[in-house]
């Protein structure tokens, strides 16, 4: 077992043990914090596929996070008001079922990523950053100005959605769901990175010309990565909305996109567990520094500066050392 693997296992174990301990000592707030970490880490795992593997600096991933959130909000709000989403040409009713909501969130954000990616992947560098940012802002302002689902005020869902066989209102059980999905996404990410697709995508990031001269399409590889990436971030959005039982346009805001990217930079770009380390550090800082001062972002900024200047591999890089080429 390599050093990085050991750190990864410790991280995942820690993320499971902390809420279990909180559960045993009856501290539900800590469980909620851990759940936030798991969900935001999941959003980061999504972005890390585009950013870390594909080298695509997307500043618009809040679009997918928000779409996932609204997929949950829209379906659940119709279920709680007993009004169907639409009746013509066929009847679609709201639902409180998490699996159905997840699939909807995955599909909707994948579709959005396909459209956004198909347009924005024709550009690169700064232009790609700007165009993804612009798409994110489009969704943000659309959500604000769409009165049907709360507009600027957002949308409250009174009871958390259901998962067969579990009581989702119990914090530790809901944490379990989020943790399981995070673990699944990490597993998927690891498989992806070593797959032929991952190999080709990784090479595309380093030298697109090389990939083209062996007869593969860099554009299609990047688009596929962008779609997978968007879908995972969308799933995280649905869980985030379920955690808060509230959806609002801020999920679409560029600050949200930035925050997801900060997780990755803090944790280590392209490191499998980078988003987990980053989200955990972020939430911990937010909790403790936020208690000290309202302006805790200043300290976060300083930390981020430190990481970018002195520890390019983020927390994982600092602990595990240079990335070893896997064989």
């Amino acid at each position, binding site marked *: 077992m390599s050093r990085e693997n050991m750190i990864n296992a410790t991280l995942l174990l820690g993320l499971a043990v902390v809420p279990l301990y909180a559960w045993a000592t009856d501290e539900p707030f800590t469980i909620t914090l851990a759940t936030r970490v798991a969900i935001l880490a999941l959003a980061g795992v999504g972005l890390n596929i585009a950013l870390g593997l594909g080298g695509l600096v997307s500043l618009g991933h809040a679009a997918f996070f928000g779409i996932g959130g609204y997929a949950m909000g829209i379906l659940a709000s119709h279920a709680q008001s007993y009004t169907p989403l639409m009746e013509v040409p066929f009847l679609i009713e709201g639902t409180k079922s998490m699996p159905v909501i997840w699939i909807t969130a995955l599909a909707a954000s994948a579709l959005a990523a396909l459209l956004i990616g198909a347009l924005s992947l024709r550009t690169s560098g700064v232009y790609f950053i700007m165009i993804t940012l612009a798409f994110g802002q489009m969704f943000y302002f659309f959500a604000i100005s769409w009165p049907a689902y709360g507009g600027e005020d957002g949308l409250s869902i009174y009871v958390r959605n259901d998962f067969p066989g579990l009581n989702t209102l119990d914090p530790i059980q809901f944490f379990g769901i989020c943790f399981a999905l995070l673990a699944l996404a990490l597993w*998927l990410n690891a498989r992806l990175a070593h797959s*032929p697709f991952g*190999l080709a995508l990784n090479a595309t990031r380093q030298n697109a010309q090389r990939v*083209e*001269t062996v007869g*593969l399409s860099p554009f299609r590889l990047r688009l596929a990565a962008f779609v997978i990436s968007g879908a995972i971030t969308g799933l995280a959005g649905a869980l985030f909305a379920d955690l808060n039982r509230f959806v609002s346009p801020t999920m679409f805001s560029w600050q949200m996109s930035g925050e997801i990217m900060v997780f990755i930079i803090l944790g280590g770009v392209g490191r499998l567990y980078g988003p987990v380390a980053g989200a955990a550090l972020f939430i911990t800082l937010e909790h403790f520094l936020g208690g000290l001062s309202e302006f805790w972002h200043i300290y976060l900024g300083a930390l981020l500066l430190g990481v970018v200047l002195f520890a390019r591999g983020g927390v994982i890089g600092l602990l595990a050392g240079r990335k070893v080429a896997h*064989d």
Partner: protein
Amino acid sequence: MTDPVLATHGITKSFGAVQASRDISLSLTPGEIHAVIGPNGAGKSTLIAQICGGLAPDAGRVEFLGQDVTALPTRQRARMGLARTFQISALAMEDTVLQNATLGALGARGGPVGLLRNALKDQDLRDKAMTALERVGLAAQASTVTAELSHGQRRQLEVAVALTLGPRAFIMDEPMAGMGTEGSQRMTTFLDELRHEAPILLVEHDMDAVFALADRLSVMVYGEIIATGTVDEIRSNPQVRAAYLGETT
């Protein structure tokens, strides 16, 4: 004479006032090494870019395997079996040598790219990649990170990646650049054999290698091919001596 594998017909390309390619027609027939020589800035790399795709000629056609490929993107020409090695190595530097070779094997397979299988445990891909590495003499460096290779070794890897494609023609842009005398000689011996597998269009500055290998030589000066012929013909061509050979030697 047999049909050419690869041919250009009157390729012309200008960048503003500079004519980088002027009415270039050349061919590559089965089993031959056709070397293109010329001073720096003669337009050799521009010519290669137009043959391999990535740069569209203003006029003229590129034919590969009897098919007009002028409008096809690089990717499709590669699929048809046009393998290119780069003057400045175009490799995934952070990846291992084996991963780079596997990428070529993956491209050769062409089909849908798997999402969940482990690429390096795919026996077929691995065999193809390892065979290519063995042939260029890089098998021992399979798990070395590419950035750690010497310039010469990177050239060898370029050739290995091209081999994995099982190509119908090679386009090689200075495969001997950065190699020592010994490496150069080994590469020369290797290319000498390789021509029987697929013909090679060779752009090279190493004149010893060119004269040892080339069945035919084309001399490019200012975007134009001023002469094409066997090594002896070119050597005795007064125009060439004046324009090129005299300048460098």
